[in-house]
Structure formats: structure tokens, C-alpha cells
């Protein structure tokens, strides 16, 4: 039973090492010369007018929400898509049902006007 978990742990560590090495190598190689102008925010070369810490419009949150739903959907279809030939007909219809439920959700959001900006 244990070796199965070993694989997962091994892949988890490999992921962390892969991402970490990218950071470490670039941290080592890049020159560092911070100065005040470089740390100031980039505003097309002009002085910053007004403050950027404001209450954002709720529309942005709705967009983010719908994006997350479909992102998770792809997360599930990916492993299925790798082996869907061996799984046969049943898995196919199962996945189709899963996708249809989400499309219905999108249709509802569309008709409700969540995607319109106004």
C-alpha cells in the first residue's frame, strides 16, 4: 500500500524542486541594483495620479468566478482525455454529462447577464 503513496510524494517533491530551481537559478544569476525610481510603480512614464487602493467593481469578481469554474472543468477532463479510449463508452457519456451540466451553468449566467459589463 505504501509504495503507491511513494509515487505521489515523489511527484509532489519533483514539482516543488522543478519550480524552486527556476527561482533559485534566476535569484543567483540576476544582478541586483534596486533604486527608488525602479521601485516606483510604472505609469507610462508619468507621475501617478490618484490612489489605486479602491473598492473594485463587483463585475470583476463575477468574471473571476466563471473562469474558475471552467478552469476546474478542464482540470477534470485532462486526465480523462488521456485514457478515454481504454475507458470505453460509459466513461464517455459520463464526461459528456459533466460537461453538459457546466454548459447549462454558463447558459444560465449568460442569460442572467453576468457576462455583460453594463
Amino acid at each position, binding site marked *: 500500500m505504501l509504495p503507491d503513496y511513494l509515487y505521489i510524494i515523489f511527484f509532489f517533491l519533483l514539482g516543488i524542486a522543478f519550480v524552486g530551481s527556476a527561482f533559485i537559478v534566476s535569484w543567483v544569476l540576476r544582478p541586483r541594483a534596486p533604486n527608488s525610481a525602479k521601485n516606483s510603480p510604472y*505609469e*507610462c*512614464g*508619468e507621475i*501617478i*495620479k*490618484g490612489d*489605486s487602493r*479602491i*473598492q*473594485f*467593481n*463587483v*463585475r*470583476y469578481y463575477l468574471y473571476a468566478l466563471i473562469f474558475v469554474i471552467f478552469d476546474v472543468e478542464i482540470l477534470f477532463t485532462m486526465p480523462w482525455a488521456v485514457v478515454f479510449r481504454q475507458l470505453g463508452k460509459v466513461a464517455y457519456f459520463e464526461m459528456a454529462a459533466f460537461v453538459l451540466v457546466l454548459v447549462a451553468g454558463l447558459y444560465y449566467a449568460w442569460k442572467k447577464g453576468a457576462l455583460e*459589463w453594463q
Partner: protein
Amino acid sequence: MGELLTVNMGPQHPSTHGVLYLELTIDGEIVVNCKPHLGYLHRSMEKIAENRTYIQFIPFTDRLDYLASMNNNLGFCLTVEKLLNIPVTPRAQYLRVIIAELNRVASHLVAIGTFAQDLGAYATALFYTFSDREKIVELFDNICGSRLTYNYMRIGGVSGDIPAGTEQIIKDFIAYERKQLKEYNELLTYNVIFLARSKKIGILSKEKALNYGVSGPILRASGVKWDIRKEEPYLVYDKFDFDVPTGGVGDSWDRYKIKLDEIEQSLRIIEQAIGAIPEGNPVSKVNRVFRGTGETYMRTENPRGELGFYLVAEGGFNPYRCKIRSPSFSNLSVLSELIKGLNISDAVCVLGSLDIVMGEIDR
């Protein structure tokens, strides 16, 4: 109505067509107010004009609207000829018409390419139109030795005759360009996404256009049938028949479509002019030292609108005062009215359709 945020669509920005600084106050994605700031390319042209002789100022007019340098040269030389009433040889008039119209085609091609790029067709349309423009720019390179700032027109004519095989090159280019125009129509003009992004965006009514002094393709897109080459013909424009395409509603798509149709009309003019070039020397034999008194105002049809020169001369070699009335300056003043209430991506679309050049606005 959330809190308002002030965003600098500043001097260094990929879609402001030069160094234009728009201070946008936005509510989420909607532009509530836009305050343009100019002057980031103000090179004090009019002060220079007062310290240069008439001939010495011609290279500076190249750098005004640097996409249509020939038309600027033409506008300035016509004004000086009108002020000092200098004759122009007939061959020079035909050469000037051909080359000014070729430069109009090149300028509209850049405007179409950058407009499509603003709407998200990243660089594909730009590559098409720029490769067409390269043919014209190479032709100008043969004629007067430079790709962008030509300094080709002289007071009283043109600086040199066109090399021998140029008529044939121009004829081939016209045939090639007509094929390309059909391709642009299929590829871009009636593309569903392109229509969705530019139809009904930034509608400019006729009265507002006249009130803001807008001129050129943008005025014609709003339905005013007005072209200086037809209304007050200069050079030999009255000898050619070409029609003035006018748009319907005055939205961004109309402004784009007008430029395509105008390329077609310019090709027609060039075709008729090529066939009827008279013989003769390209510049009139006049005493090359120009001085005079008086004042005059002359305007010509630039690709972007009516370029006017107001020259005041007090007898010296240099003009006493030279005011350059630039079309993009008035065209841009409409922008802040057009984009109130649109979201930012549509504001970029309207700015692209107005087709401004900062060198001409800031002088």
C-alpha cells in the same frame, strides 16, 4: 457606480499612436472622463520657421505628418507659390499629383494596419499593409533617395524628374494593390469579430464634426461629402474624375472603410495622371532667392484632413510668421467627447480610427 480610478494612458503606450497622454478616469471598465495632454513631441516648428528661408524650411515640413511627408511638402510649397506667385511647370503639377496620391495610399495603409492591430489582430494585418507600403516606399527611394523624409518638392516644381522605368512600376503597383484591396475586404472588413469590435463605436454626428473643425476621412465618414481636391481644386485635380466616398453613420468602422475606398480613388487618380504626363522640365526656371511681402492661407487635402499653412511675409528671406493648421490637432479634440461612456478597449478602437500623428499635433 463604484469608486473612480485615474489611469495614465500615458506618453509611452503601445496604442496611443505616438506620445499622447490620456488621463482616463474610469469606473471599472467604463471611461468616465478623458483629459488629453499634448506637447510631448513639441519641437517648436513655428519658431524654427521664423529663422529659416523658405527653401530651408521644406525639410522640416517632412517631419510634421511623417507618414505623409510628400503631402506636407506639397502644402507648404503651394502656399509659398501662392504668396510669391511663382509659376509651376505643367509636368511638375502632374508629378506632384501622382506622388502626393501615392503617399496618401502609403499613409492609409499604415492607418489600416495599426487600426487592425489596435483591435487585436496582432501584427498580421500590419505585416500585410506594411509589405504593400514597402513597395511605395521603395519607389520613393528610387525617385528621391529617402524612405520617409523626402524633401522632394521645391518651390516652383519638384527637385528632380522621375527615373525612366517609374511609370511601368507604378502601373504594376496599381494592379497589385487592387488585388490586395479585394483581399483586405475578404479578410478584414467584413470579418465578424472586426465588425463586432468597431461597428456603432464612437459615433461622430455631422454637427459635432463641423463644430470641432474635424476634416478629412473622419468628416466624410460622418456623412459630409467634402473634399478640398473637389471643392477648391489645386494643381490639376480638376482634370481627373474621382468620387468622394462618404460613410453612413460615422462610427469607427465607417472611418476605416473610408480609408479603404480612398485608396481605390487615389489609384484611379494615379492611373489617369500617369497616362497624361506632359513633357517639360520638372521645375520652373525662377530666380531661386525668394522674398516677398503679404500674407496668405492655403490648405490642401492631407490623408488625415485639411493641412493649412498661414504665411506672413515682411520682405525678408525668412517668413515672418508661419502657422501650421494641422488636421490631426482638431480631429483629436473630438476624442474625449467620443469615448465618454465606452469601455477602455473601445476607447483604444476610437483612437485608432481617428488615425492621428503626434508629429503634426505637437508641431
